[in-house]
Structures are given as C-alpha cells and as structure tokens.
C-alpha cells in the first residue's frame, strides 16, 4: 500500500487584532509544537512578538515567505506569514484602520487553500461591526468564504464537539425572522450539503440525520404550531427519497439527552439557540465551527473576539486547538481519498 504524502500546513488567519486571536494562536502553538498538526498564522510577525513578550509567553516567531516553509520551523517557532502591514493594535480597543488587513488575511488564506499550498483555512474570530464600518458587505465569515470559494450550494455552518454535531438552518437573525424564513427548500439544501460533507470529510459512509421540530413537543400533531407538518416533514420525505437516513421532526427537548445523541450523526436544527444551547451545555470551550459545502476546508473556534479579556492571557486556546485538529483530520481524509485510500474511522 502506498504511503500517503504529508498534507500541507493549515493556514490560520489573524482575525480581529484587538481580540484574543493572537494570544490563543501563541498558546495553541505552545501546546502543539511537538505534536502538530503544522499551521502558520497570516499576521504581522512583529505584533505577535510584542504580544508574546507582553504576555511572558516564550513563543519564538519565525517569519516565513511561503506556506511550504512552515513545516521545517514549526517544532521550534510559530511560523508567521506576513500580512504586509504593520498592525499596531491595542487589546480590547477596536480600530477600523485594521479592517482591510483582517479581510486580506482571510483572502490570502483562502487563496493558499484553493491552490493547494494550505490544506485548510482556520479562522480566528472577527469583529463584524468594525468590518461593516470599513465597507465589508458580507454578513459574516461564512458568507464571505462562500463568495471566495463557494461550491454549487450555499455554505452551511456546522458546530461540532466530541459528543454532538449540529447544523442550525437559520443562524444570525432574530427568532421572529428565523421562524419566518424557515422553508422546506432550505432544510433540504442544508441537509444534503451536510450529508455530503459527513461522507467526504468525516468518514461517515451512511450519515444518520436527526431533524428537530420547531415547536414544543414537535407541535404535538399540530396542537402547537403547524411548521412540522407544513415545512419540516416534506423536507424529511424528500431527503428520504434522495436515499438519506433521516428521523424527525423530533421533539427538540428530548433529542439531545445522553440516550438520544448516539442514535444520529448530526442534528439539523431550526434556529440558532436550538443548536447552540445543547452544544454549549456539552462543551463550552472545545466546540468547533465547520463550514460545509465550500471547495476548501474551513474550521474556526466557536467563540468570539472576547475583547473584555483580550491581552490578559486568560483566553483558553482549547477551541482553537480543536478547530486546528479537526481541520487537519478532514484534510488527511481528503489526501487519502485523492490517493484512492480508504478513509479512517469517523472523527
């Protein structure tokens, strides 16, 4: 059997420089320098040096000119590919002057992934309001990545921790508008994208989908809302016709219990908090945000910029480490698949 060649390094974006992205990147390297996976940061190397110094982190910085140099230095220094601009950020203080560099780091990372120089993109959190003020016109990371490296269907956000994967089919909108925008088509589309990704990147040959109801007790036969019968059930029927293994619409309050979780591979949820309440109850630190349906692989930690604790060294790198590891595992599967080798067991 031929040996699979080593995957390319992971590209980690700078994110909002006033937030905790820089310090969790330093801490993640310190935790992973001897184990890998190899990653490099797209940032201002001098900024990270100053940050390491101010936090008393003994993290040497190695400036690299291209991703291929990352592997050689990773064991002894954090590889940083320069963003090309000096970033003079102050922790906790937002500055729209940095917005262009924040966006450029994402564009560079995606370009490396598209050309194969990076095996996946891992993004540090951004501050949307600052980007909007500078003219950024995408609702968030996911939509911007869809623009840069979109597949045939719109990208889908999945959140994962060791015990649970969830896909909220409506995300960052008010509860009222989430309910109003729910449709059979969007459930079908996102479920199909999710199933494809679980097969391709998570090594699950026959993904089992659990679709949540919208209403208490999944509507109890129409007594408390008709969205289950009108919108969700038709989507489930169509997915079954497409050959998928699907259960639902399930009562939302019992589908996340310890007994229920092992019966499915992903929960398709109708609104943000329906997905995030169980995920965060299970794993406040280690949750990973994965974008499905792109031509490239992308993960990110499941936390925000945490401006309130930025620069204090209190930020926990657990979620970023989990995001880097998950991206590497997905990349490894793609490498194996490209070489015609069988994927390993599920992540």
């Amino acid at each position: 059997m031929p040996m699979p060649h080593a995957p390319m390094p992971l590209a980690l974006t700078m994110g909002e420089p006033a937030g905790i992205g820089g310090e969790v990147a330093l801490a993640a390297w310190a935790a992973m320098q001897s184990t890998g996976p190899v990653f490099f940061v797209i940032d201002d190397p001098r900024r990270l040096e100053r940050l390491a110094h101010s936090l008393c982190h003994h993290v040497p910085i190695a400036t690299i000119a291209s991703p291929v140099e990352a592997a050689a230095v990773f064991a002894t220094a954090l590889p940083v590919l320069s963003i090309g601009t000096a970033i003079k950020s102050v922790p906790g203080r937002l500055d729209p002057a940095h917005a262009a560099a924040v966006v450029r780091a994402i564009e560079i990372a995606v370009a490396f992934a598209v050309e194969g120089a990076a095996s996946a993109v891992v993004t540090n959190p951004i501050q949307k309001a600052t980007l909007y003020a500078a003219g950024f016109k995408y609702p968030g990371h996911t939509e911007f990545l869809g623009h840069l490296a979109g597949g045939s269907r719109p990208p889908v956000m999945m959140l994962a921790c060791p015990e649970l994967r969830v896909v909220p089919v409506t995300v960052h909108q008010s509860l009222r508008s989430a309910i109003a925008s729910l449709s059979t088509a969007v459930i079908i589309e996102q479920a199909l994208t999710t199933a494809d990704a679980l097969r391709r990147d998570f090594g699950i040959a026959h993904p089992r989908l659990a679709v949540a109801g919208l209403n208490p007790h999944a509507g109890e036969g129409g007594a408390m809302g008709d969205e289950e019968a009108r919108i969700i059930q038709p989507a489930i029927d169509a997915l079954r016709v497409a050959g998928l293994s699907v259960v639902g619409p399930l009562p939302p309050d019992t589908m996340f219990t310890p007994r229920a979780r092992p019966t499915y591979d992903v929960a398709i949820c109708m609104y943000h908090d329906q997905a995030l309440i169980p995920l965060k109850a299970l794993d406040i630190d280690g949750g990973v945000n994965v974008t499905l349906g792109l031509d490239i692989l992308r993960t990110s930690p499941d936390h925000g910029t945490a401006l309130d604790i930025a620069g204090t060294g209190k930020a926990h790198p657990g979620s970023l480490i989990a995001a880097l590891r998950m991206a590497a595992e997905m990349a490894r599967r793609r490498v194996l698949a490209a070489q015609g080798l069988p994927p390993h067991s599920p992540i």
Partner: protein
Amino acid sequence: MAHDIRPKIALAMGDPCGISPELTAHLMASPAIREAMHLIVIGDVRVLSDGADIAKVAPTFEAVQTVDAIPQRAENHLFVDLGTLDPATITRGSASQAGGPFALANFRAALDLAKSGRVSAVTFTPFNKAAMRMADPAYDDEISFVARACGTTAPASEFNILDGLWNARVTSHIALKDVAERITTEAVLRGLQLTDASMRQAGYSTPRIALAALNPHGGDNGNFGREEIDILEPAVAAAKRGGLAVEGPFPADTVFVRAKAGQFDAVLTLYHDQGQIAMKLMGFDRGVTLLGGFPFPICTPAHGTAYEIAGKGIANTGAACAALLLAARLASHRARAAT
C-alpha cells in the same frame, strides 16, 4: 410520638399502568420520607398492593375508605382507598383508558384536602396526559387543571428543579411563532417576581435569578431583534428596583452553563424548549417539577410514567423522593412563616 411536627402531605397515585404503583409503595415504606412527613396517600389499595409486590417492600399504613374518614391524628401514613380501580382491568406497561379517571380522582381528592387545609402540600406520581384528557376533555395541563380546581386566577408557573438549579418559563405549550408576541415587560416581570417569591418560600433568602434572552447572542445590540432592548431590559430594571437579585438578559446558549457553574440559583426562560433542552440534557429526569403560585405547593418527579420498565421493580425512586422532600420543606417553611 410526643408531638408530631411533621407536615401532612397528600400523595395522589398517578397512572396505574406505569411505575406509579411501585413508586408509591417505595415512598410509603421509605424511612427518610416517614421521618420528614406524614403521608396521606390517595388511590386504590389493590393497586398499591401490586406495587408493593413489585417493589418488594411492605409499607405499613392505616386505610380509610373516604377522605372524610381521615382521623385528625395518626402515627402511621394514611391510605385513602377510593376503590375506583381493579388492577385486573388494566394492562401494565401501556396506556389504558381506565388509568385516566383513576389518576384524576386521586388528584382531585388530594387538591380538595389541601384546599380545606387538611394537608399542607400535594404531590403525585407521574400522570399520562392523554389518559387524563380522555377522562376529562377540559384537561389541558396540570397548571390549568389546578387553577380550575382551586378557583385561582393568580399567576402560576411550573418550576423544574435539578441539583439545586431552578428553571421557570414565561410561555410554555404554545407555537414558537406565538412566543414573541407573548413576551411583554409585564409578563417577564411577573415571571421574575413569581420565581423570586417561590424560591423565598423554599428557603432562599435572596435567590439569584438570570433572565434568558429571546434572540441569538442576546440580539447582538439590536442587530438580531430588539426584544432584549425594548422588553427584557426594562423588565430586569423594574425587578431590580423592586429589590430582586436579577441579571440579564443573557444569551440563551450560555446562561445555563453559567447557572450550572453556580453563578445563579434560577434561570427564567422565555419559551418551552429554551429551558427544557438544557435541563433534559443535564439529566432533568432526576429532577423535580414544582407548580408554584397556588395557595399550597404541588410537587412531582420530572420523569414520566416509564411504561417500558413498569412492573420490573427497577424504577429509580430518587426523583420521587426529592419531590416529596421538597413539598415537605416548602410546607414547613410556609408554616414557620405563618406563625
């Protein structure tokens, strides 16, 4: 016994096809329960006897035939044998229509005892709602049934209690699309006040209550909905002015994590699944449900009828014991507060 200061607690036998008979027998035989309260159990002695056989316990009690025959003082637990159900007519392990009238009659009698002051709290073993509805088409849920039976109109709420964490909700069994309309500053403030009052009656001097937000990320400063700014923040401010230890609104996906870590004693949620997803994930089957806002406390284990294990003698009695002990604690606290 020199001077019995134990509170008198009514226990209505619930659905006879599930684990209620064995649970009742267990509770009546429990030394911890006997020490904490004097039980007046309502049901059919033939159903209890089956439960005792399953549970392999031998509860001792004095039986009477009607509630009017209940003596003023008794050393032993009392069993009011209404004689309404021959266990030979039901099938254990699946819902049966005869279970509805049985449970309903027991519950009514228990509520009557509390209304007339002969017991200071009501408890019950799990009901089957569908069977209850067959017996009484007007039966919607426990809260509305009790309100009708007691003739009360004051705000009442269901509290779920797990490992010392309380959860109450502003809306319950309604479609999600109708929730936002029902969330008013007044309704939220009422919920906060009822939570505070119910917890004070349970012995908390200043319960710390967190209010959950309606929208993702708590509305993200109005970007994902304005209910937090227009409705919830004013409710929290009003509650604080009234001396309540209330904080929020907090994003719903982290509020339970913080409460579980000990930052709050209670979370007030805005809709059914906001609280139920978190509580059931954390193991709420071990918890207790309290119906608060009535003239007397009503407690029951949070779990259901458990048909799949009925009759096997393996039912866990922890939640039912906790429900009875909470009822006794609330009753004693009220009695002390009244003197």
